[in-house]
């Protein structure tokens, strides 16, 4: 009893001592903010915010995330009315919204002062030219490898550190299991998954060039990565189950998938979707590297940011909320516990709550402190990676090319060339000066 009390006191003290950055002052007078976000349990976080800033009321609307939210947001921005003050947008889709002219440039409100509190690469995502700031980073999806420890042992393997080792391990698993079990899985309908793998190897897909754009979807890095995976797919050493489908979860739960490359928000999904199947057997390890013995390099899949719309009548309060939501320890803890959001705040990466071994996803991962693995990955993400406003099109077109590749109608190189060609044509039709 006494010990518990002491621990609680120590925890409280820890929380109190860990300093949040100084947030901007709340504007005078009563303010109501409308927030669109798909973060589960955000209402609880908001209650804490309202306690800290009694003059600001926050109304949260959850539109379900992804396409639904984007369609509605795009429509309100286009209509010039009905947009919320704050909205949640994934990094890859941010430029498309910047392009509507409907987002406020937060640099004019002093957002630049908060750059130092975020993991460096995340700021590059919300401030592509280093001047204008179009969003406050919220969560991230740096890449690491998750794997079944028991299966690795069964096949006499240890977690591969390089892609060469991974390829060998895939062949071993295939042979020893008679083709029933796959070492890994290629998500053929998630361009950002593939791009994160190439991102880790320094590949760039879009780049601003003064007033123009350069698009290189078929860059050498992308070709290297795709050819590597296609080789394993063709031999049957890795599968091509679609992410987030019952087919995938069923195979993973049945022990037919030994490993997979997943973003930092992925482990929460494994714990939630697999429940007791394989519980305690999963582990996280660094993303395999192309060169052995170097510092860990990683890419990012997903993650999101908070934008303030140009329509907002309370931009100061909206920015204050966005900063607080992503920099205050209280909010970061809540976002992690309730929503599995892996923080974009640099201090947030080391927060004690991320390392709680008694709770999922760490518990599901055999009590391993997986957040250390992911924090290392986050700090190894290439800072210069950029997205283009027409990415949503590229995102869908990727699926078409992968479908043709998996059917054997295109080679990996041809698939990437077609992706480049068709997306470039579309970008030009949308009026971009791009080559």
């Amino acid at each position, binding site marked *: 009893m006494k010990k518990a009390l002491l621990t609680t006191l120590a925890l409280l003290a820890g929380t109190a001592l860990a300093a949040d950055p100084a947030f901007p002052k709340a504007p005078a007078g009563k303010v109501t903010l409308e927030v669109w976000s798909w973060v589960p349990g955000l209402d609880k976080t908001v209650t804490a915010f309202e306690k800290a800033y009694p003059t600001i009321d926050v109304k949260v609307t959850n539109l379900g995330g992804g*396409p639904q939210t*984007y*369609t509605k947001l*795009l*429509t309100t921005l*286009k209509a010039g009315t009905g947009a919320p003050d704050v909205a949640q947008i994934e990094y890859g889709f941010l430029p*498309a919204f910047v*392009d*509507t*002219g*409907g987002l406020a440039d937060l640099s004019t409100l002093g957002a630049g002062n908060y750059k130092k509190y975020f993991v460096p690469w995340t700021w590059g995502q919300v401030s592509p030219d280093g001047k204008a700031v179009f969003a406050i980073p919220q969560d991230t999806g740096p890449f690491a490898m998750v794997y079944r420890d028991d299966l690795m042992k069964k096949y006499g393997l240890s977690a591969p550190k390089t892609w060469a080792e991974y390829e060998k391990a895939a062949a071993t698993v295939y042979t020893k299991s008679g083709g029933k079990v796959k070492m890994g899985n290629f998500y*053929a*309908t998630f361009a950002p998954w593939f791009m994160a793998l190439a991102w880790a190897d320094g590949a760039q897909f879009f780049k*601003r060039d003064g*007033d123009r754009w350069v698009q290189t979807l078929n860059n050498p890095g992308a070709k290297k990565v795709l050819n590597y995976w296609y080789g394993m797919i063709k031999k049957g050493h890795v599968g091509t*189950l*679609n992410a*987030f*489908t*019952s*087919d995938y979860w*069923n*195979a993973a739960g049945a022990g037919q998938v030994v490993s997979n490359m997943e973003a930092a928000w992925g482990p929460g999904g494994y714990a939630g979707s697999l429940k007791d199947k394989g519980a305690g057997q999963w582990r996280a390890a660094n993303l395999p590297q192309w060169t052995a013995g170097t510092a860990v390099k990683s890419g990012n899949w997903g993650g999101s940011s908070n934008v303030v719309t140009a329509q907002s009548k309370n931009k100061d309060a909206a920015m204050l909320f966005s900063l607080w939501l992503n920099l205050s320890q209280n909010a970061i803890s809540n976002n992690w516990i309730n929503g599995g959001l892996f923080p974009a705040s640099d201090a947030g990466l080391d927060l004690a709550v991320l390392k709680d071994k008694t709770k999922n996803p760490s518990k599901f991962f055999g009590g391993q402190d997986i957040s250390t693995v992911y924090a290392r990955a986050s700090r190894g993400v290439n800072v210069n990676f950029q997205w283009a406003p*027409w990415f*949503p*099109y590229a995102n*869908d*077109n990727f*699926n*078409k090319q*992968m*479908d043709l590749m998996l059917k054997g109608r295109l080679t990996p190189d041809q698939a990437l060339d077609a992706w480049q060609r068709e997306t470039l044509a*579309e970008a030009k*039709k*949308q*009026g*971009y*000066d791009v080559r």
Partner: protein
Amino acid sequence: MKPPRAVPWLFLSPFLVLFAAFYVAPVLYAGYLSLFIKKRVGFGPARDVFGGLTNYARAFQDSEFLTSLWNILKFGLVQIPLMMVLATALALMLDASRGRLQALFRTAFYLPYTIPSVIAGLLWGYLYSKNLSPLNQLTGRSFDFLGSDVVLWSIANIVTWTWTGYNMITLYAALQNIPGDLYEAARIDGADGWNLTRFIKLPLLRPSLLLVLIFSIIGTMQIFSEPFVIRPLGYVPDNITPNTYLYLVASRDGNFGYAATLAMVLAAFTLLLSAVFLRFTRRGGEL
């Protein structure tokens, strides 16, 4: 005493106001939007500038869009006749049967229609999933119902499953309205079951069948939710139906002008199909 001229208009006005606000105005706005194209100068948001018929010219050269029209045409040519034959057969069977079973079957056949298409999509999505599908487990095969070559027909199956019962009810109601003395007279002339069906029921069903057909053509052109619900489960082409394609042009690519153009072209195409069809069926003469 004759009522003043304004009275009918007064009674009509609620309809006219709603019709103007929710039908005429959006169509006019879409027509207006379709004349604008996106223009950019350097960075920053695109401006909508007047482009005349540029969008229309693009639509008729857009192979993705033309493929989507071809898809839906193929779809309609197979799915609509299949569904109509099924619905007619079920309606005739119900009409011929008697008793409690009739009510049971009527409800059972109609049931799929009461399930929202999004739920139906999810339900079938599960039945179609390659490794879990009970259909695959029963047959011991591993057929990919969601493969991009067959997914159009998997959707046709969902649509048929949903709408057959609904159409059956329309036809069944028409059958119930056939006066009994017609049957009586036919029987006196020595007509048996098949002759009754062939020479009385089917001809008298013709107007209802036409109605069902026109609604099916229009409904087919609008197919959207089924492919959309299935999209997350695998690769479903952007342009599997014209509606999914134009939705993506608007909501994903933010090109409202071009999407409006596609909508106008699609509406014209639907109108054309229905008109040609009515013409074609009327030429057969009255019965």
